[in-house]
């Protein structure tokens, strides 16, 4: 403030001096005296102003402290939090309520054979099983919304966007509510959800280690078993992890069908255990059982996207309907290794599942005749995925199916297995820039379809919004 004023004064002084150079000596003296007077005046006035300013500031400060003083107890701890700035939100996976996340997936596949004609002899495919469309196509675009309802319930919605007959359609894939506050380690889930059988069944496609599901999941579960129902889950209070679960579902979706028993058509039972060995190893093993009743269950349209209208019509003309019971037993084993448990740098995952099923009932042929069918089938896979350094993972997988002979009646039907067991060999490499992005290259030698097939695919998976869970 003061320097500014002095500056102005000096600037004026310079101007006047310059103009005064031409003036006689006496006038110059008078001007000098006048200027000196002005300067003294200004300085004293500035000093007065400064005094008043100081006084005003002090007064304001006093008022402020007298207002704040009763609220905080002096002296305050300088490291303590500002009460307004810290919120408690750790229960939720993000700031927004509810959490919103979107998964983007896309792919390019090339095949030797036409994937539209793909079928595995002896194992008519259902649901979303079968190869992805040839060429460029959008994978599942999935919207996830979740939040705690209140202190006792949490809710989850997965709504994928699909292309059906060239038009976008929104679907309800999962929509469930689960209890948070039941006692004794119990929880109840209700709604539509992926069944908790097996290791892979309830994993969403963006969490798979390969671009597709192993053969037994495709053949026995239509990729993934999903239905409307109730699940009761119990967590044992023991040192060793032990989880038991039971589900009862409507029985509408493959391998069930027709919602028999007045809409209580199928149920599952499951037991799972696991643990650690030191810091670097952990494992999980489980066994599960699915009993599904099928009432006029249609199979044989094994294509992921049903945007081939003419083809659907084919199957409507020639449905393969099954009525009977499907029993499925699944055994899972997963072993994970990461030095000191620090999986971000380096890790290895081995996983394997074995599935056995029996279907007992009648197949109804196109001409309306019923053929009794009682056949045991099996399938299994082994896979290993290694991350040698951050961001890169490499995996190998072998999957295969086998079937008993269903009977002479089934010769020349899709239910008659080929002489050689269906099998595939796959390798993949993926790169993840962050937790939220992944690009994957996969090659599969398919010896499961009618003819051997070389399949090469490129896939992307991106997620925005809510932070996905690091499930085991």
């Amino acid at each position, binding site marked *: 403030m003061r320097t500014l004023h002095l500056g102005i004064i000096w600037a004026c002084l310079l101007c006047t001096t310059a103009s005064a150079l031409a003036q006689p000596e006496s006038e110059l003296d008078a001007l000098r005296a006048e200027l000196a007077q002005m300067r003294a005046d200004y300085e004293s006035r500035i000093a007065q102003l400064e005094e008043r300013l100081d006084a005003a500031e002090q007064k304001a400060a006093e008022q402020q402290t007298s207002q704040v003083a009763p609220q905080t107890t002096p002296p305050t*701890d300088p*490291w*303590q*939090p*500002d009460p307004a*700035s*810290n*919120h*408690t*939100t*750790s*229960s939720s*996976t993000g700031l927004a309520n509810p959490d919103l996340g979107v998964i983007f997936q896309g792919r390019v596949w090339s095949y030797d054979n036409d994937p539209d004609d793909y079928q595995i002899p002896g194992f008519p495919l259902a649901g979303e099983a079968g190869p992805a469309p040839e060429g460029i196509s959008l994978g599942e675009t999935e919207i996830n919304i979740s939040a705690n309802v209140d*202190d006792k319930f*949490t809710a989850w919605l997965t709504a994928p966007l699909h292309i059906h007959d060239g038009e976008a359609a929104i679907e309800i894939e999962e929509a469930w509510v*689960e209890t*948070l*506050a039941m*006692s*004794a380690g*119990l929880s109840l889930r209700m709604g539509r959800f992926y069944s908790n059988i097996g290791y892979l069944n309830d994993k969403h496609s963006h969490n798979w280690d390969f671009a597709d599901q192993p053969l037994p999941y495709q053949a026995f579960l239509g990729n993934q078993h999903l239905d409307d129902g109730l699940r*009761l*889950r*119990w*967590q*044992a*209070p*023991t*040192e*060793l*992890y032990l*989880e*038991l679960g039971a589900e009862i579902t409507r029985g509408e979706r493959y391998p069930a069908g027709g919602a028999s028993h007045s809409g209580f058509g199928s149920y599952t*039972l499951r037991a*799972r*255990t*696991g*643990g*650690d060995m030191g*810091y670097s190893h*952990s*494992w999980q093993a489980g066994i599960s059982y699915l009993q599904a009743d099928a009432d006029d269950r249609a199979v044989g349209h094994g294509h992921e996207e049903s945007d081939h209208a003419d083809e659907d019509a084919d199957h409507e003309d020639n449905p393969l309907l099954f009525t009977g019971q499907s029993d499925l037993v699944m055994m899972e084993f997963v072993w*994970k290794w990461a030095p*000191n*448990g*620090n*999986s*971000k*740098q380096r890790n290895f995952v081995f996983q394997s599942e074995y599935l056995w099923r029996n279907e007992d009932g009648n197949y109804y042929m196109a001409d309306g005749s019923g053929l009794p069918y009682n056949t045991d089938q099996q399938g299994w896979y082994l896979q290993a995925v290694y991350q040698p350094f*951050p961001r890169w993972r490499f995996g190998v997988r072998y999957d295969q199916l086998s079937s008993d002979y269903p009977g002479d009646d089934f010769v020349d039907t899709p239910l008659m297995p080929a002489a050689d067991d269906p099998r595939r060999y796959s390798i993949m490499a993926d790169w993840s*820039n*962050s*937790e*939220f992005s992944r690009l994957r290259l996969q090659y599969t030698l398919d010896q499961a379809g009618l003819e051997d097939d070389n399949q090469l695919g490129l896939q992307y998976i991106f997620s*925005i919004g809510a*932070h996905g*869970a*690091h*499930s*085991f």
Partner: protein
Amino acid sequence: MKKVLFVIILLLAPLLAEADLNIFACEPEWAALADELGGDMVKTNSATNALQDPHYVQARPSLISQVRRADLIICSGAQLEIGWLPMLLQKGNNREVLPGTNGFLEASQYVKRLDVAVNTDRSQGDVHPQGNPHIQTNPHNIRLVADEMSKRMALLDADNSETYQQRLQDFQQRWNNAITGWEQRGAALQGKRVIAHHKSWIYLEDWLGLEEVATLEAVSGVPPTANHLASLLDRFADSNDADFIIRAPFQSEKPSVWLSERTGIPALLLPLTVGGTDEATDLFKLFDNILDRLLNAEG
């Protein structure tokens, strides 16, 4: 089915009646603090160890069974455990330790959070909008969390509340003395310039008055890239441009060693939590060791 479960529960009921307070700590520093404050009245488990990046943990079976049996869960919070803690809580089926109950303690709620972002976008990497969660590198934060932790222990185990109070007072006295010592030694570090692998150290920097001049990660959470390291080499061409390059034990040593060899700036491994180095065996020795390592590098 329900009947079977009921019978199993009855059979297991005696196992549930444990005298100890079962404590599930997400990170080793909170397990160590719980041991200080609870002594043999508590049984602690840490979900992660000092050689693990606490963000990249999976909801393993063993952790689910620990959450199931826990009386008190203590985690740094501020989204550090966002990838796995919500899932553990959901699978653990233990209503006594849900957020909002006395059995759930989010440590970062009781300290002054730094780097609280007003507007975040993941192009900036895996940033935590609720502030930097690595609060344990300032001993004053440990002190503040200790008050709350002891309070919770006393609430959950009322029979021993006086003992918890005594242990807290004893701990705080020893801790405050230790802080005085560390601050005297640390005065020499005031104003030193730090290149950090990841933004894991801002509370330490804030406490000791260090200045973070760069991070090896160009984008938080994404491993250092060759391009970014090359640009750092341009910026810090000789040993006078910064004083330390620091990293935690679970971070790859390659980027810091690479930069150190070319610039002459010393690369240091600092324990981010208890167990991070052979010397950092408890909370006191953790800070002793951090200061030792910084001062030794200083020469």
